[in-house]
C-alpha cells in the first residue's frame, strides 16, 4: 500500500528502470501471444533454406532446414523465458531455505553452511551447471533448467543469508521475541517478509543470468532436442552458416541480449527502490 506506492513513484523517475520494464513487458507479451503471432509452424521445414532477412513471407529469413526464423524465435520466447523463470524459482526456493537457516540460527549451522557455499562459489556457475548436467543421463531441456537452478542455489543462499542477518538484528524482531513468539514464527512472519525487497532484486537480476546460462548450455549442445525452438539451441544450429546466412544466428542472439539487458535494467531499478542498503530507498 503506502510503502509500495512511494516506491513506484521513485521507480518511475529512473528511465533505465522503465526501459527495462518495457523490454520485459514486451517479452512477456510475445511469450503469451506467441501461438497467435507466429507466421509458420516453428518446426515446419519449408522449401527454401538459408533465405536472407526481409525475404517475402519470411521476415527474418529461414535456417538450414528452411524453418522460419521469426516463428522459431517467437515460439522460443515462452520456452527460454519459462525455463529461466523456473530455474530461478528453484534457486530462490532452496537458496531461501538454506540462507534463512544459516542467517537466522547462526552459530555452527551458519559456519557449516557458509563454508560449503564458499567452496561451491569458487566455481563459476556455468561450470557447476555443466557438472550437474553431466550427472544426468537424460538430455531433455528440463534437466538443463534443473542444473542451472541448482547451480544458482549457493549465490542465492549467500545473499539471503546476508539479508536475514541484517533484518534479524532489528528491534522489531526483538520486540516480537519479547511478545513470546517462537523462532519459527519470527523467521517466517517477521524476518523473511522484510527480506522480500532484496529477494525480488536478486530474482530479477538472476533471470538475466539464468536465460544466458541456459542458452549457453543448449548452445554447447548439452540439452534439448533439435526441434525445440530454444534461443541457445538455435544459435547452436545456425552459427556454422553465420557467414553465408547470418540471420539465423543474429536474431536469436539479439533476443537473448535484449532479454538479459531488460532483466538487468529492471533489476537495477528495483534495487534502487527496494534494497535498504541503496541510498534511494531511505524511508
Amino acid at each position, binding site marked *: 500500500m503506502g*510503502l509500495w506506492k512511494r516506491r513506484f513513484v521513485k521507480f518511475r523517475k529512473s528511465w533505465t528502470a522503465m526501459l527495462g520494464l518495457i523490454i520485459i513487458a514486451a517479452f512477456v507479451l510475445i511469450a503469451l501471444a506467441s501461438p497467435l503471432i507466429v507466421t509458420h509452424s516453428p518446426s515446419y521445414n519449408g522449401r527454401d533454406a538459408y533465405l536472407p532477412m526481409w525475404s517475402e513471407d519470411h521476415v527474418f529469413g529461414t535456417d538450414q532446414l528452411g524453418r522460419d526464423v521469426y516463428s522459431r524465435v517467437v515460439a522460443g520466447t515462452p520456452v527460454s523465458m519459462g525455463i529461466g523463470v523456473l530455474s530461478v524459482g528453484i534457486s530462490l526456493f532452496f537458496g531461501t531455505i538454506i540462507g534463512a537457516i544459516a542467517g537466522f540460527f547462526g552459530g555452527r549451522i551458519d559456519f557449516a553452511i557458509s563454508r560449503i557455499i564458499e567452496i561451491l562459489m569458487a566455481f563459476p556457475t556455468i561450470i557447476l551447471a555443466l557438472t550437474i548436467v553431466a550427472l544426468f543421463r537424460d538430455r531433455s531441456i528440463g534437466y538443463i533448467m534443473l542444473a542451472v537452478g541448482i547451480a544458482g542455489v549457493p549465490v542465492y543462499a549467500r545473499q539471503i543469508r546476508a539479508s536475514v542477518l541484517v533484518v534479524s538484528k532489528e528491534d522489531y524482531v526483538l520486540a516480537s521475541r519479547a*511478545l*513470546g513468539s517462537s523462532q519459527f514464527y519470527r523467521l517466517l512472519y517477521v524476518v523473511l517478509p522484510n527480506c522480500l525487497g532484496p529477494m525480488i532484486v536478486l530474482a530479477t537480476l538472476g533471470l538475466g543470468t539464468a536465460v544466458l546460462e541456459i542458452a549457453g548450455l543448449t548452445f554447447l549442445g548439452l540439452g534439448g532436442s533439435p526441434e525445440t525452438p530454444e534461443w541457445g539451441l538455435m544459435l547452436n544450429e545456425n552459427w556454422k552458416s553465420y557467414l553465408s546466412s547470418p540471420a539465423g544466428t543474429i536474431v536469436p542472439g539479439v533476443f537473448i541480449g535484449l532479454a538479459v539487458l531488460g532483466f538487468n535494467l529492471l533489476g537495477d531499478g528495483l534495487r534502487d527502490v527496494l534494497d535498504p542498503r541503496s541510498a534511494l530507498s531511505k524511508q
Partner: protein
Amino acid sequence: MTDHSSAATLERAHSAADRKSDRPILSVDDLKVYFPVKRGLLSKVVAHVKAVDGVSFDLHRGETLGLVGESGCGKTTVGRSILRLIEPTSGDVYFEGEKLQDLSPAELRERRRRMQIIFQDPYSSLNPRMTVEGIIGEAFTVHGIAKGDERRARVRDLLSKVGLQPDYINRYPHEFSGGQRQRVGIARAIALNPSFIVCDEAVSALDVSIQAQVINLLEELQQEMGLSYLFIAHNLAVVEHISDRVAVMYLGKIVETASSIDLYKNPTHPYTRALLSAVPHPDPTRQIDRVVLQGDVPTPLNPPSGCRFHPRCPIAESICSEEIPRMTDLGNGHQFACHVEARKLGK
C-alpha cells in the same frame, strides 16, 4: 468485556496480596552479563566485555525504579537480560516468585505475557511491513488469544487506551510521527496485560513536549493496570519525575540506590553528585557547585581495579584503587558504594 473486568479484579486481588506480603514482583540478584570477545581462526575467547557486573535490586508491585547512567554503562543490557532477551552469564532473576533462568523456552514464552519492553527507537522497533493491527495484534496471534474481528476489536481498544484514534488500525508505521509510533509501541507492550514493563529509554528519542505526554500516558497506565516499571534513562529530570526509587549505574555496577526524593536531595556517591550537577536548571542566576568529571568512561573490557570510578573520582584515595567498595546502608533504602563517603559518615 467480562473477562477483561474479571482480569482487573484479579489484578487488584493480586496486588493487595503482594503488598501485604511485601514480596517484590521482581528480584534481581548479582546479575552478570559478559560478552566474549573472540579472535582468530578458531574464535578463541580472548577477553570478556563485562557489560553488567553484579547488579542486584528489587522492584515492588506498582513501583517505578529508575535506572540511570552514561551511555555504555550497561543499563540496556540489564533490562534485556532480566527479560532473557540476552542470556545472563550468571545471577538470578526472580519474577513473580519464579526463577526465570530455570524456565524452559516454552514456559518462558508463556511468561512473556506478564513482562514486556518498550524500546528506545520508535522507528526501528515497529515492523515497517505490518499495519498497526498486525504490530499490536501480533501479541494475540502469538498466544492464540484472538483473531479476526475479535483481534481487531481488541487492537482498537488498545489504540484508544494509548490515546490514538482507533481508525488508525490500518495504517503503517511510516504514516505516524515519532510520538505516535511510541504510543503504538506502548500499546503493543500492554496488549497482553503485563505486570512489569522495561521502559528502555522509552522517551529519549522524542521531542521534549512529546516526552511529557508519553510519560503522562505511562503514569496513567501504571495507575490503571498496577504496572511496575524499570525505567531506564540517561535524562535525570525525566527519571526524577516518574521514579519512586532510582539506581545509578556506572560501568556495569550500581553505585547508589535511593528513593527518588532522597537521591536528589542528598546524593552521596561522587558519581551521582557529578551527574546531578550536570542537570541544567531553568534559573540562570542559581549558583551550583558543578562537578566536572575528567576523562572518559573506561572500557568495560578491562575495568579499573577497586572502585571502578576511582580514575575519574574527585575525592579518590589510595584505598579506592585497591578494594572494591561494599554497599553502605544509610537507612530508608538509601545505599551507596564509596569508601571515602562511608568513612566520612562513620559507617
